[in-house]
């Protein structure tokens, strides 16, 4: 758009016509000077470590045994995939991402429709709903573990006792469920934040017209509200997937992946190989597998919604 207006200006002033080539050359130089720092930095950030990871994944490389860096081909990948933790880690990653996505999208839609109603104290309720998103992951994990889920002094135990039930030792008996609860508590508010804002741009007149035509609340929700929220929901799914694939601090501070491999996801498994067992080669192989999984997810998601993103932004 800008170039066309520049062009029209130059045609209005014929004596400037010679400058036209100069303008676009100037624009190119400007573009190069301003965009290239970001692009170069991100390119280096992507390529250098990734290339090193690929290299490490093909050699024997353990920090405990320096100097024995023979080329081993795909051996690291073989050991990583046949390791007892791999299947558990992959399954747990899927369970964690899937459940948290489901919880945050379904409850997120329902809650943001609920707080779109004009009731007393709505502003305050909204602030309360989104607050957990701003709490740092290590804090939410430890607050849940020690103040809420603790089998002796936690709030849940007190509620259980109040109803005459035996308190549950959450992290021993339902470790994955506990992690899902904590992570959902952090990411449901993100969905609410995005969907609640999107609800505000919903055309009220369209809803009123549908109501006059005799449409019930369910029909309005299904045919007007939900289609309106489809793009924001896609955004929520995409961004949460990126972050949920790499959930780490919550596991690190509560269960350390245990008991057994019950709460080990791929991120934690690789961390375990790398910085606890010092097996750089195997951790790198695992890292590459995680990258491949993330890229499959990213490819599918960008295909689904990436185009919409730039179309809307422009």
């Amino acid at each position, binding site marked *: 758009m800008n170039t066309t207006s520049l062009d029209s200006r130059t045609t209005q002033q014929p004596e400037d016509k010679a400058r036209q080539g100069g303008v676009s050359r100037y624009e190119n130089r400007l573009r190069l000077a301003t965009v290239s720092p970001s692009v170069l930095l991100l390119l280096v*950030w992507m390529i250098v470590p990734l290339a090193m990871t690929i290299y490490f994944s093909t050699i024997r490389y353990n920090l405990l045994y320096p100097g024995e860096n023979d080329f081993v081909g795909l051996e690291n990948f073989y050991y990583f995939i046949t390791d007892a933790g791999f299947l558990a880690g992959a399954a747990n990653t899927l369970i964690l991402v899937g459940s948290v996505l489901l919880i945050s999208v379904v409850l997120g839609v329902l809650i943001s429709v609920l707080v779109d109603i004009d009731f007393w104290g709505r502003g305050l309720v909204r602030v309360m709903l989104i607050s957990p998103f701003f*709490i*740092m992951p290590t804090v939410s994990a430890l607050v849940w573990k020690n103040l809420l889920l603790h089998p002796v002094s936690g709030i849940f135990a007190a509620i259980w006792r109040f109803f005459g039930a035996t308190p549950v030792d959450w992290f021993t008996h339902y470790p994955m469920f506990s992690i899902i609860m904590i992570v959902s508590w952090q990411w449901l508010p993100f969905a609410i934040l995005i969907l609640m804002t999107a609800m505000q741009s919903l055309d009220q007149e369209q809803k009123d017209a549908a109501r006059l035509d005799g449409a019930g609340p369910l029909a309005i929700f299904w045919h007007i509200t939900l289609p309106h929220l489809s793009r924001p929901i896609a955004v929520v799914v995409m961004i949460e997937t990126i972050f949920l694939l*790499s959930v780490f601090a919550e596991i690190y501070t509560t269960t350390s992946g245990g008991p057994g491999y019950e709460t080990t996801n791929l991120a934690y498994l690789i961390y375990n190989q790398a910085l606890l067992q010092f097996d750089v080669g195997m951790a790198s192989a*695992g890292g590459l597998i995680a990258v491949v999984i993330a890229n499959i997810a*990213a490819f599918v998601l960008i295909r689904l919604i990436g185009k919409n993103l730039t179309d809307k932004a422009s």
Partner: protein
Amino acid sequence: MMLTLKQTRQLRTFLLGLLAWAVGLVMFFPIFWMILTSFKTELAAFASPPELFFTPTLENYVEIQQRSGYFSFAWNSVVVSFGSTIIGMLIAVPAAYSMAFYESKRTKSTLLWMLSTKMLPPVGVLMPIYLLCKNTGLLDTRTALVIIYTLINLPIMVWMVYSFFKEIPKDILEAARLDGATPLQEISRVLLPISKGGLASTMLLSLILSWNEAFWSLNLTASKAAPLTALIASYSSPEGLFWAKLSAVSTLACAPILIIGWLSQKQLVRGLSFGAVK
């Protein structure tokens, strides 16, 4: 008794409002409980059933500074998040400027490519980054965290600033250009004053993300450069009664970000959704 249509509607709004309040209170409860516990004595914090009424004490806040040196960790968090935000803005604003006002055929694919770098899971590059930091002496330094946070937040910052710049009418800039303004003057005298609200919320988002980041801070720092996320993780191996102290340190660590989040929730949505939801 028959209710009129208006009364039914009022009753329904009232009941749904009540439900919304209940949901909000449940979601907020862990934070409320954390703040409350931070003012209890350790003995009261462990009491079962939990005590709702007690004599508040500030001893936990005094003790976390004396025992674990809260302020040095907080200072690391401040330096790292402000450092990466300022450097990130210096790189992102020029890029967003030319992408928004001198769009080319490649602009959209560049933007999408930047977004795709966010898809690279950190564990995929954990080993090389760790070893690079180790061999260059950057392990456990604030410099390492500043560099990494700048890079991981850069795509979001470019997107967010870009989407704010897109809303500015180009005529304003062209008018300045016709008056003989250089690009630098254009940016500093015209663009920045108009878009300062958007730039401020971009900076706030970057501050929030860096402040709460807990993968690199846990893996790359030990004691010298450890920010608050790492200090709190150190409370995961308990020694004796520590509930109240954990709550106090958590409350202090989260309060600034919580307040920033409350104040800027509307503007944050745009950055968090890469400009798709406004």
